[in-house]
């Protein structure tokens, strides 16, 4: 994982470092401005910032001439030293729009500043594999599975938005991960979802669970992607912080692999998809309040609302564009919107860009440059296109009824220059946003209660001794929320669409046929165990990996690659950071021992209620390959007289 957002999870002002008690948990009653965030409450009204432009936008020129102007960098989650570094990079104070961009791209969420040093192990310990066409650092890992076909898959979290607005939070979580898959050149072919809720009988669970399930289903069903498995787990530790992890998988001809580099001076930068609105602008709204102290009502950032129909059209138009060989590069717009897509694509190619922000189609014409750049409006992609092919791209978009708008061109200046109303409001080296964010080796400390927790052995629990006791125990287990039938959830998901689902709920793995002739297919499983990881994060991560690996293997598939979604509390809490470090080490070691690489994934920090973090919850997805899906092994007994054999101890 590089210094890039690996997720579309809402990006808001990151947590001010060293002030862990300010890390609050979103509550549904609070306003969205305060809650849509990854972690932190930014009270818009409290930001004591003077209105600092009276004659038009805060341009680059103006910034150079007013070096001493106060800027709300702390409110935006940037530390003193981070702000100083930005000034040093630019040789002046950042403009308002630039400040917004740095605060987003250097947030925990996008920069992986706390996790980066640990995640390196995934690369360092990865077994050599010539199947890997794209790995960590790309939108999603790509694994070659035959002479001509490759598969891409990835898991991602949408935890906090799903607590604020369960339906839309979960729906846009699915939409976001599907765009990652699409950006690699693949046709998305299935989704999975790993869910964690509080106690089954808690009122918050009653509010959150139906919405999340309906949202996962609503988006995936309408997009036409079969849901082939997942998890539903209840535990009080997730009461104020449910987890919504979504996985998507796609297939592509090897020759169709796409990348995000905005290469080629003079190439055209095209925005494809939905109009841009004030969705999920989050902490950056602090800048709006700086300029418009009154009347901020209508300026509040809003919850992202998914439009799966638009996403379906986006998928079809992108695939048509790929097949016709019309583009040089592509990137999805997720959590950090245009900011991330523009800076990452330029940084990846080592180029620059001239962008005209006035060309961005807006849902609300009054949007300011920093709002346009920070908007998390869904269902958008950024394309890099040779000038001679622009018309063809626009024609494909028109065929599918999707907006496509040239925004500017690729340059060889190495600067990302963004104009608004004719004047530059951004002029930065794109790599400074995308790759050169801060990196922290945060302090680690084993939780003090771990010894006690581990001393409380299962052997001390009373055991059923009589037949009746045993019967009562079995019934209690069968009826417990974590073990009971999950049909209420899985029935809300379409598992048949596309006609290639070989195994799905209630099987241990989902199996999808890729090739009707040869029977080539894949198996996928997504597993995690937060309770175990709480007791031993190193082995807990290994356990999740082993479970997913076994689930895939028992279908008859050969496991080939791993994705993960690492859900933890605040990285500023050394005990959480220790859990994280241990879990990553465990997963990396496990992968090394099993001989399969981690190809991508996602880190979600700040999952906590007040000072209480969730159980460390690494969720692991394993991809396997079946050379002939007709030979898959389902989990049910198939014939009378079958012999049962127990393997292992």
């Amino acid at each position, binding site marked *: 994982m590089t210094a890039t957002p690996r997720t579309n999870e809402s990006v808001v002002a990151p947590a001010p470092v060293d002030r862990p008690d300010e890390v609050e948990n979103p509550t549904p009653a609070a306003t969205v401005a305060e809650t849509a965030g990854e972690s932190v409450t930014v009270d818009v009204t409290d930001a004591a910032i003077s209105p600092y432009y009276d004659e038009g936008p805060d341009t680059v020129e103006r910034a150079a001439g007013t070096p001493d102007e106060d800027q709300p960098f702390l409110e935006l989650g940037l530390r003193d030293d981070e702000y100083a570094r930005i000034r040093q990079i630019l040789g002046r104070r950042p403009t308002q729009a630039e400040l917004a961009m740095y605060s987003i791209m250097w947030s925990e969420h996008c920069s992986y500043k706390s996790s980066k040093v640990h995640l390196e192990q995934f690369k360092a310990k990865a077994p050599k594999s010539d199947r890997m066409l794209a790995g960590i650092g790309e939108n999603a890992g790509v694994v070659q599975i035959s002479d001509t076909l490759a598969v891409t898959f990835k898991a991602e979290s949408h935890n906090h938005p799903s607590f604020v607005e369960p339906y839309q939070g979960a729906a846009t979580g699915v939409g976001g991960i599907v765009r990652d898959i699409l950006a690699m050149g693949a046709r998305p072919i299935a989704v999975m979802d790993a869910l964690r809720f509080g106690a089954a009988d808690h009122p918050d669970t009653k509010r959150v669970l139906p919405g999340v399930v*309906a949202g996962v*289903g*609503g988006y995936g*069903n*309408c*997009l*036409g992607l079969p849901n082939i498995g997942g998890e539903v787990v209840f535990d009080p530790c997730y009461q104020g912080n449910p987890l919504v992890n979504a996985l998507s998988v796609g297939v592509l001809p090897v020759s169709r692999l796409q990348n995000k580099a905005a290469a080629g001076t003079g190439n055209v930068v095209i925005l494809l998809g939905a109009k841009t609105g004030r969705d999920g602008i989050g902490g950056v709204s602090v800048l709006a309040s700086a300029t418009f102290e009154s009347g901020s009502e209508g300026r509040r950032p809003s919850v992202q609302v998914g*439009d*799966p*129909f*638009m996403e*379906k*059209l986006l998928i*079809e138009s992108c695939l048509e564009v790929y097949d016709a060989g019309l583009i040089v590069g592509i990137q999805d717009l997720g959590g950090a919107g245009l900011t991330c897509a523009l800076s990452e694509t330029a940084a990846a190619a080592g180029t620059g860009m001239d962008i005209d922000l006035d060309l961005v189609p807006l849902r609300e014409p009054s949007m300011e440059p920093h709002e346009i750049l920070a908007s998390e409006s869904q269902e958008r992609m950024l394309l890099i296109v040779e000038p001679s092919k622009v018309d063809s791209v626009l024609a494909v978009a028109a065929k*599918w*009824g999707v907006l496509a708008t040239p925004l500017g061109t690729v340059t060889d200046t190495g600067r990302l220059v963004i104009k608004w109303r004719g004047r530059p409001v951004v002029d930065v080296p794109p790599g400074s946003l995308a790759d050169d964010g801060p990196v922290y080796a945060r302090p680690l400390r084993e939780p003090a209660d771990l010894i006690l927790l581990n001393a409380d052995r299962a052997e001390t629990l009373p055991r059923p001794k009589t037949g009746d006791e045993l019967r009562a125990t079995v019934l209690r287990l069968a009826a417990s929320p974590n073990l009971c039938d999950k049909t209420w959830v*899985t*029935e*809300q*998901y*379409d*598992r*048949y*669409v*596309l*006609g*290639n*689902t*070989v195994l799905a709920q209630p099987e241990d793995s989902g199996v999808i*046929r890729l090739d*009707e002739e040869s029977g080539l297919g894949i198996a996928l499983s997504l597993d995690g165990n937060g309770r175990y990881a709480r007791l031993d994060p190193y082995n807990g991560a290994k356990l999740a990996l082993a479970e997913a690996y076994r689930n895939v293997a028992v279908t008859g598939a050969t496991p080939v690659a791993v994705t993960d979604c690492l859900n933890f509390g605040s990285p500023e809490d050394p005990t959480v950071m220790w859990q994280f470090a241990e879990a990553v080490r465990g997963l990396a070691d496990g992968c090394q021992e099993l001989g399969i690489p981690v190809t991508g994934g996602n880190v979600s920090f700040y999952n906590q209620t007040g000072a209480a973090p969730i159980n460390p919850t690494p969720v692991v997805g394993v991809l396997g390959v079946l050379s002939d*899906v*007709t030979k898959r092994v389902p989990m049910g007994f198939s014939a009378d007289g079958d012999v049962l054999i127990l393997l292992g101890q």
Partner: protein
Amino acid sequence: MSMRIGVVTFPGSLDDRDAQRAVRIAGGEAVSLWHADADLHGVDGVVLPGGFSYGDYLRCGAIARFSAVMESVVKAAHDGMPVLGICNGFQILCEAHLLPGALTRNQHLHFRNRDQWLRIESTGTAWTAGFEAGQEILIPVKNGEGRYVADARTLDELEGEGRIVARYVRGNPNGSERDIAAVRNEAGNVVGIMPHPEHAVEALTGPSVDGLGFFTSVLAHLGAHA
């Protein structure tokens, strides 16, 4: 010469490729039709597949009905061409008034996907002639708005004229009136069905291969009338 069955793709159609596959497995030639193209390209029959045409945010099938292709489909249907609407396709046929009644929100308010038993009630259609009357079949149902409603007179008429093509048995998945899963027009060339026969054409991917009968029926019907 194999019969050509057109499968319409609207923006938002999802089961179009599945319907094409079902046509092929049944031995027909699947022809892809595009919503904005009024030309039916000489097909012998048409399938309107499942999905969420135009997003179906307003009311399922409401917008698809106005597409260019539907004008031609309506005309061809009146001339006797076999037309099968599956799920969203059924909704579109009702919106286009080729079939009576309407499909409304499931009574339990959830999307529901399950393997569903049906009883074939009418074999006098182009799409069910190959079944036996009263035959029970197992095919997937998956919808959020699949509850069939019509006024009592229409329902009585449908019953009286034998135009209920299939009923849910062993449980009604969405609260449909009189357990109706599929209906037909008077002539029997147009059938709308809520569950998905195209998802039950291969033992590997479906709960059964019972759905194949709809596609083999129409091919046999066309062959006999060719």
